[in-house]
Every structure is written in structure tokens, then in C-alpha cells.
């Protein structure tokens, strides 16, 4: 690891000032991704700004019936929070599908939003990478690309966002609350992560001098009809090849509201409003589910090693809709697919 300075602010405004004063500095919270990347020399911050003493570690109910999760609340704390389990169980399930007990105990909500891709070439400083060093090229496109994107990729980058939590938050239409020098703003999850385009070095729309302070969940948590179905090469402790978060509001057999987000397939959690609309007003007949899957995967393109993910995603979407309709969410302990 390179040498670096250390700053420990005690107020949010100090953290924002420290970020604005030094664009090479990095925020550290749990450290599970940043320290790893620093050991690989992928991240080389001039200083780390340790926000662990900031008062951002609580979960509070909002006046509108939603939930405000502080940026420093750990993934475990969110996953096992009784309110989350009762009213936003899709989020709990997605969190428990990710990483390990040890990592979830250290990793934070804000850090999970900002975790970097696990593309092999991004991690390997011996190879070019447009995300790590803009303009050097993308060896993944013609290389080993089993885990890479099938949707929204560009000629410069085919990396995927690795988070499970973010997929559920996208389906739940959470908002990211940030503080910057000019004050605070809210970023809808749909706009928080971005597609790589020709600037894959930017994973998100967060400005360089902005700090995530919380994530807010809206009241609709789809506690009855939901699932988080994650398909991967190992049953535990592996990133998703394809994951599907589904939340439905049903009236009898009819779907009134549908929310679907895919993980493991793009540079951001993948949502297509038209696919959700195709399910709304239906009883999720096979043809309705197939139509939703086709709309979600419209424009999907496979590379040498990952074309299988298109059909895998199609089937996973249909299966996940079925799990949500039947109110039989995928267990994250019993890995047999319901």
C-alpha cells in the first residue's frame, strides 16, 4: 500500500471541506472495498477521510412512512433491522445474498453504493483499463468476460456493478441523500449509478466533493409479494451472474404495481419501466411474464463468454415474477430455487 494522509472529521461539513480541498482524497467508512483496492494499488488516495465518527449511523422512520438509513449503518444492521425485515424484506434479502457475515458487519450503506466493479482487468494494474486509467483500452471486450455486462455497455467498458443491495434499492425506488459544498440534494437510485459511455471512470453521478449521508426508502416496500433471486457460480459468497429483484402490489390475482430490477448485467441496476407496465393490470400469465422479460432484455448483447446470461436472465426474470406473485420469496439460506 502507498503512504497516505489521515483526516478524521467529526462533522459532515468538515468531511465535505476535506473532499473539496483535495480531489485525490478518498472517504473511508467500513473499508472493505477501498482497503482491498488500495492493497492492489488500484486506488491510491493522497489521504483518507475517515467518516466513522460522523453521526450517520442510525435508521429512522420518516414522517411519510419511509425509512432513512444513515450512510454508516452496516449492511448487517440494515439486513436484520426488524422494520426492514417486516416492511422492506426485499432489501434485507438482497443484503443477505451478498458477501459474507464478516464483510456485511463492516461494509456500510454508503460504501456499498460506491463499491467498484469486480472486473478482473480493473483489478489487475498490469493490464489496461478505461475505468482505472481512461484511454488505455478495455481488454475485457476481447478477453475473459464471463461476468461482464449484457446491457448498456459501451465500446470503452463492459463492467458490471457488483452490488446486491443496490438492485433492491433500485426496485424500491430509494433516494440517495448527499451533502456538498452547496448544500444537500436527493438523487433517485435510477439516476445515481450511470452507464459507462465514454467515461467509464465515473461509476455514479455523485460529484467529487459530495458525501452520501443517507438512503431513504419510500413507504411502499412490497412486503407480501417480493423476491430477490440471485444466480451465481457458487451458492454462497459469489457475485451475481444475474440477479432479479421483484416487488409487486397485488389486488387478488391482478398485479397493480410492479417493480423489477436486474443485477449483474449492467454498469448499474437495470430497470425498464415498460417491462413493469407490461405486467401491471395482468395476472402474470406466462405470456405477460415473457413480455416483461423481453422488454427488460431488449438490446441485450453477449460477448464471447457471457452470452449465456441473456437466456439465464430471461428465465430468472420469469421465475422471480412467479416467486413474487406466489408470495414465496427466494430463501437466502435454502438455496433450492422455489
Amino acid at each position, binding site marked *: 500500500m502507498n503512504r497516505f*494522509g489521515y483526516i*478524521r472529521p467529526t462533522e459532515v461539513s468538515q468531511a465535505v471541506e476535506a473532499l473539496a480541498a483535495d480531489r485525490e482524497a478518498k472517504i473511508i467508512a467500513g473499508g*472493505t472495498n477501498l482497503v482491498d483496492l488500495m492493497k492492489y494499488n488500484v486506488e491510491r488516495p493522497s489521504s483518507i477521510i475517515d467518516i*466513522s465518527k460522523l453521526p450517520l449511523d442510525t435508521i429512522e422512520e420518516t414522517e411519510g412512512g419511509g425509512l432513512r438509513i444513515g450512510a454508516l449503518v452496516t449492511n448487517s444492521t440494515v439486513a436484520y433491522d426488524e422494520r426492514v425485515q417486516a416492511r422492506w424484506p426485499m432489501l434485507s434479502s438482497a443484503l443477505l445474498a451478498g458477501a459474507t*457475515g*464478516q464483510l456485511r458487519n463492516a461494509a456500510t450503506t454508503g460504501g456499498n453504493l460506491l463499491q467498484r466493479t469486480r472486473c478482473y482487468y480493473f483489478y489487475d494494474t498490469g493490464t489496461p483499463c478505461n475505468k482505472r486509467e481512461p484511454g488505455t483500452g478495455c481488454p475485457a471486450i476481447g478477453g475473459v468476460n464471463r461476468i461482464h455486462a449484457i446491457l448498456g455497455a459501451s465500446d470503452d467498458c463492459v463492467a458490471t456493478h457488483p452490488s446486491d443491495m443496490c438492485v433492491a434499492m433500485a426496485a424500491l425506488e430509494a433516494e440517495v441523500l448527499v451533502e456538498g459544498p452547496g448544500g444537500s440534494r436527493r438523487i433517485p437510485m435510477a439516476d445515481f449509478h450511470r452507464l459507462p459511455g465514454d467515461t467509464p471512470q465515473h461509476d455514479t453521478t455523485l460529484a467529487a466533493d459530495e458525501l452520501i449521508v443517507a438512503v431513504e426508502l419510500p413507504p411502499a416496500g412490497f412486503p407480501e409479494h417480493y423476491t430477490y433471486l440471485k444466480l451465481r457460480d457458487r451458492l454462497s459468497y459469489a457475485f451475481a451472474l444475474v440477479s432479479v429483484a421483484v416487488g409487486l402490489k397485488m389486488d387478488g390475482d391482478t398485479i397493480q404495481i410492479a417493480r423489477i430490477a436486474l443485477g449483474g448485467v449492467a454498469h448499474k441496476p437495470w430497470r425498464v419501466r415498460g417491462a413493469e407496465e407490461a405486467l401491471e393490470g395482468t395476472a402474470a400469465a406466462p405470456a405477460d411474464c415473457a413480455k416483461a422479460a423481453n422488454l427488460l432484455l431488449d438490446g441485450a448483447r453477449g460477448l464471447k463468454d457471457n452470452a449465456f446470461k441473456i437466456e439465464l436472465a430471461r428465465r430468472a426474470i420469469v421465475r422471480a415474477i412467479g416467486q413474487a406473485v406466489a408470495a414465496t420469496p427466494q430463501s437466502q*439460506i435454502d*438455496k433450492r430455487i422455489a
Partner: protein
Amino acid sequence: MTTTTQARGETDIAITLTVNGQKHKLDVAPWVSLLDLLRERLDLTGTKKGCDHGQCGACTVIVDGERINSCLVLAVTRDGAEVTTVEGLSEDGGDALHPMQQAFVDHDAFQCGYCTPGQLMSAVALTKAGRTGSRDEIRELMSGNLCRCGAYPNIVDAIEEVAQGSRGDKEPAQ
């Protein structure tokens, strides 16, 4: 306001850590992991460095009641924390084994032993949290601890026995 700032190359950061019940005042460079601090400064070499990237779990310790990978934690970021390592498992601080250690012996839950300290710390924290309802649950929640000798079935046996004891189903092995 008590901002601690240190520029590149300047002096170490003063922190306090309570390790296995003993309070330590330490001056630490910001790039020192908790794992390296425990092993190199405090001579607590029971905690193992396996992958050093949070993948194997050999470095698992309990910090403020939660099991974490000590290799991915910069020590300065845990100023004021209480840390328990495998050396601190024995409740009387002596040579007596913790029930989980005894269960690992009884169930032959290791071969080479390198992953064992991490397995133990993870198992103790998991059992204390009460998330040991079934073998499947134990297996899933122990997935952050790799054992390349493949002692997994016996590790699950050991944890299951201690968990049943702590739930009052039966007495833990002594």
C-alpha cells in the same frame, strides 16, 4: 471540533484499543491494518493472515461484538474499539478452552489448523447472535471462512453442538 489530521509522512496517529480486555495506547501509521497491528505490534499471532483481501476469513476477529475481517480494517479507523482475538476466547483468561474450542477438538473440526482461529471467532460470534437455526443457516453464515482441508462437515457439527447447548437444547461439550 476534534479533527485528527495527518499529512503524508508525518507522525503516527494515537489510538486506544482494548484487546482481550487489556487497554493499549498505540501510535499507529494510518496504513497499518488491524491484522498487522495485532500480529506485529501486540504479538497476538493467533489471528492468521491468509489472503489479506477479505476472502478467506482466517483473520476474523470480534470488534465491538461483531465478527469482521481484520485484514480489511485500518487500525486507525477503529480507535476506541474493543477487540477479541482467539487468544481472548477463554473466559477465565487462562488455559481452559472456550466451549467452541472444545467442540472443535471433539468433532475433529480441523486438519492443518490454519483457518481455525478465524473459524472459531466467526463461530463464536454467529452462535452469540443466535443465527444457527439449521445446518443450512450455519453453512451459509460461515461462508466467509474457507477451510482448504475441507473440514466443513465437522465444523458445522461443532457449531451445531455449541449452539444447541447455548439454546438450552442440551449441554455443550466440556
